[in-house]
């Protein structure tokens, strides 16, 4: 371990990749120093970042491998733990075949860890390897993939400062990616026009010049409506559409039906505002679209993303500084986990499973005789298959699927149905409670490796601390597991794995440990050692085979479940600034918990009045899947008829449905039907 | 039997009921309670034979902003003194109605401040608000213009 104090590090929470320093005292993380020189956060840090010491030093940290016995958890030696894991994997493999195995990688683990993780799965003969990107941005991969050729943020976050119009749809960045706010505010100071489309009024809406409160699940209609206005008012960038895209005529055809009045009826937004938004976006010299899970987590997730791309393309707002599409990803390495092929349908570098050429490349690189040919099961499908007994052994690295997947009761049944479940994590969580074997992992500050932020910035993280007890870096655990499985891996450390990654993933071709350690990393694509990275994508051509973007028309579809007489409320879920995802980290921080202690539900005061609900009342919420309790919070942040639940507490996903987008297989977390009563 | 027979004597006329003595007492022998719009401060009884717990450290007297605590040596045979309790009427917050300070505390504050800065007339004065409501009022005033802007 290199002796540096304070030690530079990268925040383990969201996908922005903010830098800060850890101050060390006697081998412990004792303080934080800000990093004003970091290009993303410029020294700032959100509330969660400010409390990482509470996570690192938490007494609940897993310290020893644990085996479930009839009398409870038993501490065992690493050797025994890994022998057991390997034996169970091999046992299922021999008895039921490779597709009885499944692997869930982690968007919180490094590129190297995810790369090795999927390599183990594939060398064992299955593509049943996925990661939680399936739950947040799978539709970004499909939607931007088919239009632009690659499913990644097109511009760095700092570029937003140069946008003349920022159109935010389905992103509450002020709470979920707070440091984005400083760039948006910078743009506003230069006169940028900010549009925020969100069913809720959030602190992000406060920054808007025009706030569009749409009915949840009507994003395609709004986007098509804006495009209709742009086409009919002659605001299309004809030259761009002609030279750099294909399919304008088909798109134009579909858009005809989306006149502002029709769209107003669907979305609930006054037609004048739709027109105003369309004009502001199209007329700006440079305009950016910022979106997040309000777009992706729908059965129409792929279509929503596609429509965002169509809008940017017909206005030529892409491929320039300040003009692009910025999907804000969820976790610190969700981009990297996908780049590394911890996805059931992609090899590292997005070579399609099933494409013989892509498979051939990996086979040659890995010296493998044969790789599985058909796409594996996605994260959501793995749970379904486990429920049906088709998956026998599941290996989960750093995810709490009981709380992160929809329909928690069904997830629990599926986990109970497994022959063997391994959970590798830094804390015991609700999923680990179902495990047969729990492996203690090192946290971000206790290991080395590369992480790819939402802006494709690959940064190298150096260890600052020793892991607690016998906890080990995920990579080290995987190396030893691979050895037990009889896989011959030559690597000694993360740097050596990254060397192989640069051979496997073209965009990482020039990325190496020593280069990443300087100047806050590199932004991919960085194809060779002399390349300095590519902050802005699609400047000259798109990543499609012919270099042209595709305009793909999409139609509005209603969500899978809509409110009715039995379940009259529309329930939408999302995040809050003080907590994070399934909460295994943030719910262990006392300072965060004392500000946000329990599950609450936002309800409009008018609905509350009708139902005689007062602030602070305990409510029971019921959906077709189950019921949960939450404390009433009366607020006009939600519209009448709409309820909002944050998903950081157990209970929220008891209610949500596993209706999936047919292409991306992402669940529709954003819309379910629900009813409430006083508890 | 201890020699010291000093007795703690709070002076009702001076005491403003601020509770500095309750926080100062290392043995927590001085206590307070609040009920409705009354605050009571209880000083220890003096058994007259020298108290085991109260070493007569005088921290309470030192803490008292009004020099309201003194110690006396009763003449002759010391007599037993019952627990001594002083009662104070509380002022309720003009905004939320919560009793938050004694009349005497607020008078003291008002007098001290008026020597330095001009005070607004009674009835429209932040001293009559509890600290929580003062912060809230300040917040609301600060946010007023912005909220108007964001409501349009």
């Amino acid at each position, binding site marked *: 371990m290199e002796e540096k104090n304070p030690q530079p590090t990268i925040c383990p929470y969201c996908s922005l990749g903010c830098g800060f320093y850890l101050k060390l005292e006697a081998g412990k993380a004792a303080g934080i120093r800000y990093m004003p020189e970091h290009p993303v956060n410029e020294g700032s840090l959100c*509330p969660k970042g400010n409390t990482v010491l509470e996570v690192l030093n938490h007494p609940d940290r897993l310290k020893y491998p644990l085996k479930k016995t009839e009398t409870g958890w038993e501490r065992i030696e690493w050797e025994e733990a890994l022998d057991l894991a390997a034996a169970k994997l091999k046992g299922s493999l021999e008895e039921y075949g490779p597709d009885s195995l499944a692997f869930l990688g982690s968007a919180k683990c490094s590129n190297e860890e995810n790369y090795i993780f999927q390599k183990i799965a594939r060398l064992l003969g299955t593509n049943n390897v996925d990661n939680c990107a399936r739950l947040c941005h799978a539709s970004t991969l499909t939607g931007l993939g088919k239009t632009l050729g690659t499913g990644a943020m097109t511009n760095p976050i700092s570029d937003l400062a*140069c946008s003349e119009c920022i159109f935010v749809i389905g992103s509450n960045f002020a709470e979920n990616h707070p440091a984005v706010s400083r760039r948006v505010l910078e743009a506003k100071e230069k006169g940028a026009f900010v549009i925020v489309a969100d069913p809720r009024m959030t602190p992000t809406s406060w920054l808007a010049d025009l706030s569009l409160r749409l009915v949840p699940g009507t994003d395609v209609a709004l986007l098509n409506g804006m495009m209709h206005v742009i086409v009919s008012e002659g605001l299309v960038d004809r030259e761009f559409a002609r030279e750099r895209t294909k399919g304008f005529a088909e798109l134009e055809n579909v858009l005809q039906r989306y006149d502002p009045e029709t769209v107003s009826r669907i979305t609930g937004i006054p037609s004048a505002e739709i027109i105003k938004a369309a004009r502001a976006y199209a007329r700006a010299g440079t305009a950016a679209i910022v979106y997040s899970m309000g777009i992706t987590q729908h059965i129409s997730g792929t279509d929503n993303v596609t429509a965002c791309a169509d809008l940017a393309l017909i206005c030529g707002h892409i491929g320039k*500084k300040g003009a692009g599409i910025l999907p804000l990803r969820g976790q610190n390495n969700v981009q990297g986990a996908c780049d590394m092929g911890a996805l059931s349908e992609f090899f590292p570098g997005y070579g399609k499973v099933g494409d013989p050429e892509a498979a051939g490349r990996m086979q040659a690189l890995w010296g493998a005789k044969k790789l599985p040919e058909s796409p594996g099961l996605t994260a959501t499908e793995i749970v379904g298959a486990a429920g049906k007994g088709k998956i026998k052994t599941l290996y989960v690295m750093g995810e709490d699927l009981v709380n992160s997947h929809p329909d928690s009761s069904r997830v629990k049944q599926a986990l109970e149905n497994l022959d063997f479940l391994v959970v590798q994590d830094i804390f015991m969580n609700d999923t680990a409670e179902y495990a047969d074997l729990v492996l203690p992992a090192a946290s971000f500050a206790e290991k080395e490796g590369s992480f790819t932020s939402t802006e494709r910035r690959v940064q190298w993280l150096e260890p600052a601390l020793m892991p607690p007890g016998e906890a080990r870096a995920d990579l080290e655990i995987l190396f030893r597991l691979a050895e037990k499985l009889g896989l011959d891996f030559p690597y000694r450390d993360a740097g050596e794995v990254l060397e192989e990654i640069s051979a496997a993933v073209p965009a990482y071709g020039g990325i190496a440990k020593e280069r990443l350690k300087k100047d806050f990393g590199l932004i991919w694509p960085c194809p060779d050692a002399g390349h300095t990275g590519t902050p802005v994508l699609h400047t000259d051509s798109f990543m499609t085979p012919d270099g042209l973007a595709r305009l793909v028309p999409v139609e509005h579809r209603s969500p899978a479940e809509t409110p009715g007489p039995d379940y009259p409320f529309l329930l939408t879920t999302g995040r809050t600034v003080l907590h994070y995802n399934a909460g295994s980290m943030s719910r262990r921080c006392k300072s965060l918990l004392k500000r946000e202690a329990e599950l609450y539900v936002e309800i409009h005061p008018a609905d509350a009045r009708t139902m005689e609900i007062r602030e602070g009342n305990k409510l029971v919420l019921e959906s077709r899947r189950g019921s949960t309790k939450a404390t009433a919070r009366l607020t006009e942040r939600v519209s009448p008829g709409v309820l909002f639940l944050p998903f950081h507490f157990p209970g929220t996903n008891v209610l949500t449905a596993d209706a999936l987008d047919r292409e991306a297989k992402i669940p529709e977390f954003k819309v379910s039907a629900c009813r409430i009563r006083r508890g | 039997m201890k020699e010291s027979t000093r007795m703690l004597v709070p002076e009702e006329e001076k005491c403003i009921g601020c509770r500095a003595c309750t*926080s100062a007492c290392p043995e927590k022998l001085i206590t307070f309670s609040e009920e409705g719009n009354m605050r009571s401060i209880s000083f220890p009884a003096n058994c007259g034979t020298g108290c085991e717990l109260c070493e007569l450290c005088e921290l309470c007297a030192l803490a008292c902003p009004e020099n309201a605590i003194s110690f006396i040596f009763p003449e002759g045979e010391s007599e037993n003194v019952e627990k001594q309790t002083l009662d104070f009427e509380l002022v309720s917050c003009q905004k939320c109605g919560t009793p938050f300070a004694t009349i005497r505390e*607020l008078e003291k504050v008002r007098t001290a401040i008026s020597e330095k800065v001009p005070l607004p007339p009674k009835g429209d004065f932040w*001293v009559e608000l*509890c600290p*929580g409501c003062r912060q809230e009022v300040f917040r609301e005033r600060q946010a007023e213009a912005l909220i108007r802007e*964001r409501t349009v």
Partner: protein
Amino acid sequence: MPKAVYADLSRCIACHACELACERENENSRISLQVVRDLAAVPVSCRQCETPLCAVVCPGEALNYGDSGLEYDSEKCTGCRLCVLACPFGTAELRAGVMERCDLCQGKETPACVATCPAGALFCAEAESIGGNIRARRAERIKKALASPASAGRRVNR
């Protein structure tokens, strides 16, 4: 003029980072953020008054003010709470029996709440003219923002 932490409320996003940064550095947060009517967030901390009324009422000489601003010696605090009753902003608080106040993270270049603010809403400046301060700061930021690499420019004649 004493310096204090001010907020440009038009930038505040209610993220509470200021509170958590302060709490980490000082055990308790000396800044408190609340949202008003779902439409604006206001962080409030010690205003570092030029005539600090907390010091005016302090009987124990724990709080003193002079040319170098307000000085506080917690050793001398008797916990009488008169400062709490004197503070017009309701920011003076007692913790563990003694008054606790914002010292602008003495010893640090910038107070933690200011340094951590993701939206750049907080700043530490002289109290002289708060409005003037916010305007001057905004002007400075705009100047800086406009000097950064130009965007593609407004589209014309399409």
